[in-house]
């Protein structure tokens, strides 16, 4: 395998009223980013030009019609221009259906390009759910939208923050509903997807920990029986299939242990179980990865940061980490498929 291989990444611009465009200008002029990938922005060229002027990042914007026209020179930020933002009508820091519609179109095109194999992976910037909904796109976020665009029925959200990788069995549902959805088939799916993703992240033999649902992991049935009825059978099943899985472990220590390197990933049963752990780590450069798509997709783990839009001060670290992680996953996907 050539050491020179650099994956081609489609980077969506996200919500134009937020900090996304500014963050991209910082990330794509970072030599570390250029060293690991060939990036192309799917967005609006005028919005990118304005963002560049705000941040003063050392680069220039170049519009390309299609990917094959990209030159990938380090100081040039190449944009596939959808020309869908009227800057004179845009107020930064405010929910705007125009920006919501535009953000949808970037995601759609980037997904199609990646599905078609024109690029190796996609990395997404933050979108504003309210703007998306006001534009008539009723999704609860990127994950649901991407699943639909890709025709994927079993997806899962993984957050990566430092050494902590957490996949979620359930996400944007009520706690009550989440408990009903904690069932062996779904846990099996998330475990398999996690094992595959962690391998793509460069871990040869992943060891995955599974959180219980209940306090103290149910304490032998005293505080709930979902561990015995649903979680343990799923773990036993994937072990028979050769996966290295431990659990169910008490939720209040499993994520700490994983963040300390005792496991390569942890499985959370519900949204807050995983998200509390990740946010308490206090790391500002987390990455969100969608598992179960036919494509590799990583994302920033923060919102549109309307408060900082237009100021040039937004932190690009999360996007830089998301790009690097997508690069690593592309590299390992290639290596793993070559070794088959």
């Amino acid at each position, binding site marked *: 395998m050539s050491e020179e291989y650099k994956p081609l990444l489609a980077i969506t611009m996200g919500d134009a009223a937020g900090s996304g465009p500014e963050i991209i200008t910082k990330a794509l002029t970072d030599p570390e980013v250029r060293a690991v990938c060939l990036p192309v922005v799917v967005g609006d060229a005028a919005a990118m030009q304005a963002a560049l002027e705000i941040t003063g990042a050392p680069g220039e914007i170049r519009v390309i019609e299609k990917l094959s026209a990209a030159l990938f020179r380090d100081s040039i930020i190449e944009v596939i221009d959808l020309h869908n933002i009227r800057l004179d009508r845009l107020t930064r820091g405010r929910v705007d259906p125009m920006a919501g519609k535009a953000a949808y179109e970037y995601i759609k095109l980037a997904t199609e390009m990646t599905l078609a194999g024109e690029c190796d992976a996609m990395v997404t910037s933050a979108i504003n759910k309210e703007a998306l909904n006001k534009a008539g796109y009723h999704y*609860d976020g990127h994950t649901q939208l991407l699943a639909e665009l890709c025709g994927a029925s079993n997806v899962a959200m993984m957050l990566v923050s430092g050494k902590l990788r957490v996949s979620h069995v359930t*996400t*944007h*549902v*009520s*706690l*009550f*509903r989440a*408990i009903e959805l904690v069932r062996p088939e779904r846990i099996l799916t998330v475990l398999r997807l996690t094992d595959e993703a962690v391998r793509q992240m460069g871990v040869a033999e992943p060891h995955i920990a599974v959180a219980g*649902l*209940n*306090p*103290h992991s*149910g304490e032998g049935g*005293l*505080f*709930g*029986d*979902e561990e015995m009825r649903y979680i343990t059978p799923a773990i036993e099943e994937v072990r028979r299939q050769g996966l290295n899985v431990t659990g169910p472990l008490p*939720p*209040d*220590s499993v*994520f*700490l242990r994983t*963040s300390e390197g005792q496991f390569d990933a942890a499985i959370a049963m*519900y*949204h*807050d*179980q995983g*998200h*509390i*752990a*990740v*946010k*308490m*780590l*206090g790391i500002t450069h987390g990455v969100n990865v969608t598992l179960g798509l036919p494509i590799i997709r990583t994302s920033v783990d923060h919102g549109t940061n309307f408060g900082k839009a237009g100021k040039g001060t937004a932190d690009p670290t999360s996007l830089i980490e998301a790009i690097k992680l997508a690069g690593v996953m592309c590299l390992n996907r290639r290596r793993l498929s070559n070794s088959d």
Partner: protein
Amino acid sequence: MKNKAKPLIAVTLGDITGIGPEILVKVVVEGIPDNCRLLVVGDEQVLRSSFDALDAPFNLPVFHRIDEIATSGAPVAVLDLPQGSTELLALARPHSEAGRMAAEALVKAVGLAAEGQVAGVVYGPLVKETLYIGKRKYNDETQILREVLQAPEMKSVAKVGKVFRVTIAEHVPLRKVPDLITPQSVLNAIELLHEALLFYGAPSLRIAVAALNPHAGEGGMVGREEIDQITPAIQEARAKGIDASGPIPADTVYVRAFKGQFDGVVNMYHDQANIALKMAGFGEIVVLFVRSPVIITTPSHGPAYGKAGKGTADPNNLRAAIEVAAFLAQRK
């Protein structure tokens, strides 16, 4: 402060099959908090064996009657409670006899406090499953305390660093939690937390109420408890003059509290609080009782059987519990 002026705090070993004796010996050997004197209430032989196990010399004055202690100015003394059973030390599993010993010592210490012989009580880590007095099995130590002190309203509150915490549905299956979240239960928790902050003399009384559902229910899209149960309770608390905010998404409430934005957090369920606290690396969580006629605190951890007998247990949580008890005794 002269030793005799310092409040005398009774300390028990907790479940001797776990780390309780070890961490107490470590606190004594490494130096007790300087705002108190300690009276260890427990079996002298068990205590001697615990010192031996850590190669620490045992040179504490031992008394058999509480009135003998009044004349002692020793910073640490022992009130011998002959119980035998040194063979249970660091057994590393629950044992009914050890549970009985722990409960007896607790009752003895609390009795001394009720009589005014000691200024407060700190009990060592226990497990619920072995809490016997005679043949009677108790559900938890709060049940024992309420009965002994005839204080049915007693409740525990946790103090984590500077932040106080109350959890509405603690040791119950997660699926039962939504049913336990009612305007009344949320209001009760807010009021309890407010009372604990006042009891401790906290300089400000800002209370955050965590949400139950992700993103605080997102306007009812992913759960209605925030709208139907939690918000009405917050409004009622505010009408009563309590500085309560929320519902706040559970994945940011402690991030904000530890930044100093809140003095107390009401949690809906066990792991909402405990995942956050463990990730934040807070070893020192002290449980204290409010609506109690006597001052009682305890470390938040259990007997940690996995660490029993290894000499590696961390005594800082127990030391913090002693400090809090002494602080409260001096405030009184």
